[in-house]
Every structure is written in C-alpha cells, then in structure tokens.
C-alpha cells in the first residue's frame, strides 16, 4: 500500500473523518501562507493541500482565483516552495502535505523533477486537475519511481466505466468532486440534477480500494457529518479561504473547529 494510503488508514483508526485544509502558497505573501500552514498543523489538521498558483486556474472559483492572482504579484518558485513545505512536513510528522497545481507551471518545472523533489521533501501526493489520466503516462511513471501518489479526480458526471477505471488506478486517495462547477461559492455552481451524494459515494466505493476524499462546496457541519462512514477525508478549500479573508487565522481555525469538532 502507498505511504499516503497507509497514513490515512492508520489515522482513520482514531478518527471517523479526516480533515484536509487548502492553502494557496504565497497568499497573501509567502511568509503569511507558511505561517498559516504551520498554524493549521499545530491545530491538528490531518492534511494540508497546498496550491501552487497558476495564472489561469480554470477549475477554481472566485475566492481561489483571486488568491492565486494576488500571490502571483510576487515571483514564486516551485523548488523553493517544495523546500519550505518539506521543512513544515518534518516539523509536523502527524500531518501530511499534498501539492496541488495546474499542469503548466509543473510542466515547465519538469514532471520528473517535480515527483523527485516532492518525494525528497516528504510530500506524498500530487494533484493536477487539468492533466487527464490518458495523457499522464510519464507523470504516473515518475510518481511510481519516487513512491508518491498522483491523485485522480472523479465527478458525479464521470461515466461508470471511466469511474471504474479511475478508481482502480487510484493510489493514495481518490479525490471525489462533490458537484459540478468550480471550487467555492460562485455563479458557476452546478444546477443540473445529479444523483444524491450518498449514491455517488457508494458507487465509487464499489470500485475504489484507495481511500476517498470529498471536496467542492463543503462549508457546513451537516455536510461533513453526511460524509462520515462514506468517505475518509473531507476537503475544505474556498470556505476556509473565505473565513480567512474575513477574520484571519482565528476565523479560519474557528471554522475548522466547528466543522471537525
């Protein structure tokens, strides 16, 4: 079993659902974002999903887009980011860091080098939402060589055969997108009818031996409760960023405590 899946399984012995909190690297400044990550880990979140900003984040909604653009007012460097995250990972061995970004900045950095450097810094999972599995052979091989996990996404509109294929290839964990649309609150939330979340998760579970993380649109305790017993990780992104924007670290921590008490 992968290092990430093992970690999740062990943690799940003590907790009904694990928390993954999202932070945009470099927002509002590199120093501030690192301090926010440190605080989150001190408070005992199980995972941090660190987003390395890209100028054109098409899967994200307004909160995260604005944070990425703000962060990019500085020159950000992937290698420096990985070193800084590595230091945090070392200081907080009870939590794990996964790196999320879009393909282009990672492609420019080099996908082989990315997998190698991430592994060196004990960053065990990578999420690239605009890299479809069909185009990912090199990336998958690089992850395998370095014993880290490429995290794949499935959605409520993923066709059944494809869902089975993605789930069977999942290692680390499978990122289950809870609804159509982009991250967070926006005018682009899916309005179309879709299967109930319970049915959707049950369907995935049939095919997935890897743990399941659920994200997109989570911002209330009831939503987290609904996931207990059906998924392993609840992923908190834009809601946390919105709280942070309104009331800083304290407001963010309060939200996490409300959701994961």
């Amino acid at each position, binding site marked *: 079993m992968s290092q990430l899946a093992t970690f999740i399984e062990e943690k799940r012995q003590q907790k009904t659902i694990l928390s993954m909190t999202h932070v945009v690297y470099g927002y509002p400044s590199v120093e501030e974002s690192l301090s926010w990550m440190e605080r989150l880990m001190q408070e005992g979140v199980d995972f941090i999903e660190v987003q390395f900003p890209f100028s054109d984040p098409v899967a994200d909604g307004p909160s995260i887009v604005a944070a990425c653009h703000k962060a990019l007012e500085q020159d950000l460097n992937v290698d420096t980011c990985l070193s800084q995250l590595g230091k945090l990972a070392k200081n907080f061995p009870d939590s794990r860091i996964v790196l999320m970004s879009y393909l282009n900045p990672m492609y420019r950095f080099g996908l082989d080098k990315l997998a190698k450097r991430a592994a060196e810094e004990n960053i065990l999972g990578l999420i690239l939402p605009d890299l479809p599995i069909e185009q990912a052979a090199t990336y998958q091989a690089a992850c395998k060589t370095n014993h880290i996990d490429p995290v794949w996404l499935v959605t409520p*509109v993923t066709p059944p055969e494809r869902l089975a294929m993605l789930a069977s290839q999942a290692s680390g964990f499978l990122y289950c997108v809870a609804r159509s*649309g982009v991250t967070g609150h926006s005018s682009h939330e899916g309005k179309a009818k879709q299967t109930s979340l319970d049915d959707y998760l049950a369907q995935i579970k049939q095919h997935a031996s890897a743990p399941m993380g659920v994200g997109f649109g989570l911002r209330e305790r009831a939503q987290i409760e609904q996931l207990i017993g059906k998924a392993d990780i609840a992923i908190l992104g834009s809601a946390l960023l919105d709280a942070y924007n309104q009331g800083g670290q304290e407001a963010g921590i309060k939200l996490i405590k409300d959701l994961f008490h």
Partner: protein
Amino acid sequence: MQSENGFYGQYGGSYIPEILYSSQQQILHAFEEAKNDPEFLAELNKQWQQFSGRPTPLTFCANLTEHFGGAQIYLKREDLNHSGAHKMNNVIGQGLLVKRMGKKRVIAETGAGQHGIATALVAARLGLECTIYMGAKDIERQYPNVFWMKQLGATVVPVTTGAQTLRDALDEALRDWSSSHEESHYLIGTSCGCAPFPEMVAFFQSVIGNEVREQSVAQFGQFPDRLYACVGGGSNACGLFLPFLDDKDVEMVGVEAGGKGLELGEHSIRLSHNLGQPGIAQGFATMFLQDNAGQLQETHSIAAGLDYVGVSPIIAHLAETGRLKMTYAMDDDVIAACTLLLKKEGIIPALESSHALAGAFKDAPNLPKDSKIVINLSGRGDKDIFNVAKAVQDETFPQFLTDYLAAYPTNHADNEEQKA
C-alpha cells in the same frame, strides 16, 4: 486537417478538468457524425449562403498591384460575411451542432466582441440562450459590440479577474461550462481549446480556402502562389490555409501582432523569434507567451482580435514543421496598411486583417509580376472606428463625441422630459 487523437505533432490534445470529460466526448462524437452527414452539410451550406451571404468574392486589387509593382494582389472578402467577419462561418456550424445535440444554451468568450456578436446573432436565430464572457477592459474598449450583443438578447458578463481581457474571458467561459455542461455548449470562437475544437473550428472555416481554390482557378487559371492571413487564435488562417496544405507550390504566410515592440507584454508574437514557449493551458498544448515559471503573460495588439496568449495548435504545428512561414506586423505598419487599402481600393479592413495586409505589402514589391497572392481580409473595419480615428489623429472626432454626449439623455428623468 485530421488530428492524431486530438494532437498535431506535440500540440493540441485535451487537458480539461475531469468534470468536462463527458461533455467533451459528446462534442467529439457529435462532430464526427455531423461532418459525415450529408443532411447536416447541406443545412450548413444553406445557412452559410442564406444567412451569411456566402460565397464571399475574391477581389482583384488593380491599384494596389500597380502601386507595389510586384505580385498581383487579390483579397478574399470575408469582411462581406454577415456580421462583417469570418467568425460567422464557425458560429453557424457550431450553432447547428448545438441544435443537433439538443442543448439549449451557448456560452462564448470574446475579445474584441466580433465572436460575441456572431454568437449572439446565431443564438437569436436558432432560439438559444446565450451568455458571453468578456474582459471588463475589453468591454470598455469595445462597448459598441457589447451594446449589440445585449440588443440581440445575449447576457454579457464582464470578467474582472486577472488582466480582464480575452484570456480571462476564456477561463471564465470554461468555468461556466464546468457547471452548466449538461444543458450548455461552449461555442469557442477560434481553433484553440481542447479537442475537437481546433479541428472543428478549422473544418467550419475551411469554407474560405475551399472557395479560394475554385475562385482562383476560375479567375486566373491557377492556385495562388502565396497566401497571407493574420494569426490571432488562428481560425481565419486555418480556414484559408488548410485546403491548400497538400498543394506544395502554394506558400503560406501567417502574420502575428508585433504590437508596440518585442518586449514581453507589448506584442502577441507566439510563433517566431523564440518569443513563445511550449505550454499546456486553457485545455490544450500550444506555444504560449509565458514567463520561465510557466505563468501566462499579458499581450498587446492594436487589434483586440489578435491579442491572445496562445495560438491554434494546428498553426503551431504547421509553423514548427516549416509548412507555414510566420512573420509579424507592428501597430504602426498595420495602420499604414489599413489606410493604404482605404485609399487605393475603397475597402475598409479590420485592424486584425490589416496585419495580413501589412505582411503582404512588405513582400509584394519583391515578388514576380506574374505571381498571384491572396490575402485573407478576415473582417471589415467599421468596428475599429474609434481606434482608427485615434491612430490617424482625426481632428473632428473628439468634437463629435463631445456633442453626442451633450445631447445624450443621461437618466430616466431626461428621457421622460424628452418624451413630454
């Protein structure tokens, strides 16, 4: 041009969020079926003819030819399409495909607003709901187009993220599509984006080159020696060039926007002088203007329609393999070319198309007198009235604007007063 699984050499492909997979596959299959269905093609030809006025003429420019004393200059008159640009060829095609797929709503991005208007026109005609994403800065620069989109019943959404131009509008259109894919079609305006959009848009635009094949033989007994087209996203260039791809004697020249200079941010030159770099963004792989960290960069052109950070993967591939020669024209040369066409031939060209003119005018004097060149006049210039007035420093224009504003009823009360 047939792709290999969506790829043209190393460019193209489909790099989209997982949520769009099913919709992308649906378009892939629908297009594959439609382009082989005689009934669909008959309807397409009928709409091209009856709604857009095709075929467009191939016009010989005797005065320009004499002026330069070299090649014989012909213009392919895409400016005579309904809506005033080649954009119509594509929106009619995709519009019919939307009906075929049974979707009720279209989303489009627009830079200058030409594709926005073309989309709004077709949506109105086909009874489709229509949402247009447009950068807030482009809305400021191109308000007359916004006005017509709204009058046509489209919802125009100002995009206020990033640089607030075409690239941001495209991102936002993709985000809308991510949530509305079940009932909406993303009607992309150029031969960019994930597969099958580059191939599909190029297919619909190839009517341009196909007509030139017939018209050139009919009018001067041979295929042209050389073709010129401006390259923004690349759809008018694909349209003119692709039907001649296998005719090795037909040379092809693509003209990009040199803007104000060759510093990053001042131009939109992606395919020559090592200014663009390979990248993967906005759904596909191509040459992008980006920094060393892979962040996409700002672009500039006097012609909003050429002001795009990426380029068609088909054009990128043809440029890389040397089939296509790429050059650029600076803003000043473009205005000069525009002015020359006005004065010599009585045709008002769009500033986008004036890039193709500028590129061709540079070569024309040095080409043999019996050689024939065809320049794609992709659009007409009426929409550029404000920009051209400023560029030629027209003295009367500011007074016109002042007077117009003074007489314009600025609030409801004024309106009522006038009625009374």
